[in-house]
């Protein structure tokens, strides 16, 4: 579709700026912008048609099934979108907090109550809503870990992660000045306990795990892993990306984790927005709360007030309280679901994943052939014999109207296909997906060329990624 910059006509107008009721004034020439910004000149209808047509080029949860492992692409409620638009929330300036706490009591209550609910769901003592994304939450967690060790006078150098970890884990470790030690996964799908014990020593600051892990497997020895870490004064960090599997059945705070981050755009169904925004609130146990970012919200009788004076705080992770309207939607979602709803989420997420696992294991290799949690990882290794890779399977699924699963992650599984259906998908949708996957397995044997040519029904066919990376055309030049 044509770029918006090539549309429009000189001096076409899109908007009516209010007539000025104050005297005209020119900025001193010295400070004036010399070249006018060459933004397109379109009518409102031009703009509407352009972006509406662009929207129609997208897959989305509202139109397609997204079995993306590690992403939890569940249905996004509509009523939370309405709540976000309430005037008392959307028009509120964050700096009003500095002018008078009395004018922002409603939002302070939302944040405070959400913190309490997240504490109860995860078994932690305190939460901060400041981190602006999951990876930002990981960075915050590591900053808290570093502050904790500095306070205790512990000299630490390393952070342990399993080789199945999400890329943000070791990247966050580097951003915080630590070095990563990677522990391989054993044949049962658990972090290798023997090698873990070997590498664990007084120089280790923390261990980052997600539970269940990225293979969709819950480690029944997780408590031992936590206890071992604590024995060398290392902190246990829970990457909450997979919380959708265990709500109501297990809380990281109870089993030995000291710090957690959550991905609100995953477990708590705030919309992904085509890549963001998200939110990554961080929860802590015990003493670690003295290092939390400021300000903290305190409740005195029925009044909410802010506490800025916390001498051990790491400072500011975000300008205010994080992505407030994402927090707000999370609060609404949790209130709506309630205790029984959250438990039902995890039960049906795990049910759906195991149903897919059972129905597909005859057609695709399952490296860890056992009960999974909310996601399972297949491998296209059986299909490779005919030259079909995970990416070819993915592209054909697009033609069948399904967004592909996550491919090539976790990196420890060759030609990985990570499937997470989520609890909001019905049995019919799963059955349709299964039929498509069975068809693909057959095509891989009988007519692989069809898979190689896919997708054919989309607005563009397979794109030349090498050309994109070599030529680097990153903007319209005019």
């Amino acid at each position, binding site marked *: 579709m044509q770029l918006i910059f090539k549309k429009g006509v000189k001096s076409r*107008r899109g*908007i009516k*700026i209010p007539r000025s*009721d104050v005297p005209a004034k020119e*900025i*001193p020439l010295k*400070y004036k*912008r010399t070249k006018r910004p060459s*933004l397109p000149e379109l009518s409102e209808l031009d703009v509407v048609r352009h*972006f*509406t047509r*662009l*929207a129609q080029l997208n897959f989305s949860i509202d139109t397609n099934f*997204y079995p993306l492992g590690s992403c939890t692409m569940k249905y*996004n409620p509509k009523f939370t979108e309405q*709540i976000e638009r309430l*005037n*008392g*929330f959307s028009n509120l*300036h*964050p700096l009003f907090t*500095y002018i008078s706490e009395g004018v922002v009591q409603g*939002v302070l209550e939302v944040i405070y109550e959400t913190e309490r609910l997240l504490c*109860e*769901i995860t078994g932690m003592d305190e939460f901060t809503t400041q981190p602006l*994304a*999951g*990876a*930002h939450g990981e960075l915050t967690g590591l900053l808290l870990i570093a502050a904790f060790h500095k306070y205790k006078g512990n000299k630490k150098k390393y952070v342990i992660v399993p080789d199945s970890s999400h*890329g943000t884990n070791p990247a966050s470790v580097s951003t915080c000045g630590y070095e*990563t030690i990677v522990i391989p996964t054993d044949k049962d799908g658990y972090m290798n306990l023997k090698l873990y014990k070997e590498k664990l020593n007084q120089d280790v600051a923390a261990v980052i795990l997600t539970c269940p892990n990225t293979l969709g497997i819950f480690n*029944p020895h997780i408590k031992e892993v936590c206890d071992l870490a604590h024995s060398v004064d290392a902190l246990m960090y829970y990457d909450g990306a997979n919380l959708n599997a265990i709500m109501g*059945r297990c809380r990281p705070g109870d089993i030995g984790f000291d710090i957690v981050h959550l991905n609100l755009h995953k477990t708590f169904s705030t919309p992904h*927005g*085509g*890549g*963001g*925004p998200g939110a990554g609130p961080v929860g802590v146990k015990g003493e670690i709360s003295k290092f939390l970012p400021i300000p903290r919200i305190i409740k005195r009788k029925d009044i909410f007030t802010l506490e800025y004076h916390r001498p051990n705080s*790491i*400072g500011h*992770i*975000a*300008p*205010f309280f994080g*992505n*407030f*309207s994402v927090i707000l939607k999370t609060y609404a979602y949790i*209130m709506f679901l309630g*205790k029984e709803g*959250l438990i*039902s989420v995890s039960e049906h997420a795990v*049910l759906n994943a195991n149903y897919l696992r059972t129905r597909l294991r005859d057609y695709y290799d399952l490296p860890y052939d056992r009960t999974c949690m909310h996601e399972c990882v297949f491998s296209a290794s059986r299909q490779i014999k005919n030259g079909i890779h995970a990416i070819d399977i993915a592209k054909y699924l697009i033609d069948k109207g399904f*967004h592909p699963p996550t491919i090539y992650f976790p990196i420890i599984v060759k030609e990985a296909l990570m499937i997470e259906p989520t609890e909001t998908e019905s049995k019919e949708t799963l059955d349709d997906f299964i039929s498509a996957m069975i068809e693909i397995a057959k095509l891989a044997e009988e007519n692989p060329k069809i898979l190689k040519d896919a*997708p054919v029904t989309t607005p563009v066919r*397979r*794109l*030349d990624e090498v050309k994109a990376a070599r030529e680097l*055309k*990153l903007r*319209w030049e005019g």
Partner: protein
Amino acid sequence: MSYVPHTKKEVEEMLRVIGVSSIEELFKDIGPALRPSSFNIPEGKSEFEVKEHLERLSLKNNTNLINFVGGGFYDHYIPAVVDALAGRSEFYTSYTPYQPECSQGTLQAMYEYQTAICILTEMDVANASLYDGGTALFEAVMMSLRITGKNKIIIDGGINPIYKNMLFTHTANLPVDLIKIPPHIGQTKREEIYRHLDEKTAAVILQNPNFFGTIDIHSDIVEKAHSLGALVIESVYPISLGLIKTPGSMGVDIVTGDGQSLGIPLSFGGPYFGFLACKRKFLRKVPGRIVGETIDKEGKRGFTLTLQTREQHIRRQKATSNICTNSALCALRAVIFLSILGENGFVEFSKLNYEKSEFTKNLLKNIPGVEVINSPTFNEFTILLKKNADEIVNNMIDKGIAAGLPLGRFYKGMKNYLLITVTEKRKKEEILRLAEGLNNAINL
């Protein structure tokens, strides 16, 4: 009910296929010792009850105050098309465009966004957005460390104090030397910067207009920095770029800022988005996602995420940054906003902000007990009151006016200073009420 569609019959059928007799059996790896010691979440409510509760909470916030508060986040008009178009669920319920064939909508919109940011700032390349203006500034600092191999950063006195705090927090465990120039309201004090600027400097961070509202031209500082092998990072306010000299024209190396003013509601702090743009030669050091143009196997033009090998999901420990999400939906709002305004609309919009602010300045400077401190300014300026600014502002809240941001909160010794912001939304009678209110609060 939790948006779970399964009937009892379907659950039984699925359990039968899996080969277990209950859902509980699927959780056998979570032994009794690992079960929760408590799970006291209140019972679920209906959609109606939740909305009612939150409507009540929303009314406990006062959004009826006439808003003269800025400080980096602005009360601007958002045209109706922005909500209408960004509110389409094909945009907001879609995923990161890792599968480009089914994400051309998002990808093209991001490519157009990248172009728009370059047009506004007069820089060569921009990425597909970051979380906010503060983290964008941190990422720019990290970029400058990678590019120069040096570790000294000079932070000018006019930088947003909250962003400054964020920089210190984010770099606490990294071998970075952050030098803070003391705050000052007027244009950048060159001699303060030059006192610290040397061959060990990776970058100088400037802001235009600065936190206090002052406009400057930084080409001289850029030249001096370059002569010593240092870069210049500038944090800017997008709406001002309709009127004032761009960082690109000054030779700035990396431009950052918050895009909230481009069609994003204030929402008590977020989500917003950060933008980052730079000279072409630094392209491979840019963090986060970038969209590039290419063709498909039939020669048709398409868009795709590129330079992903820099990102966490491939490079892991050696990634340029740990960023995963961007703020795509907010960046989309911005490109829609800029499209509906267009070249003329954007310049007029910008000019209106300036004119309203200048009118306000002229009015206020005639009030006894008020001294207007800085010029030239865009739509924010600082005044010195003969009384405590917190008290004055509190007094005026009762009269329905949020008169400005008292600076004593951020700077010791500035308890009588007030930062006033006037956007295109402030009508003349509101400005007259501000002047009258200030006069009464100070002099009666």
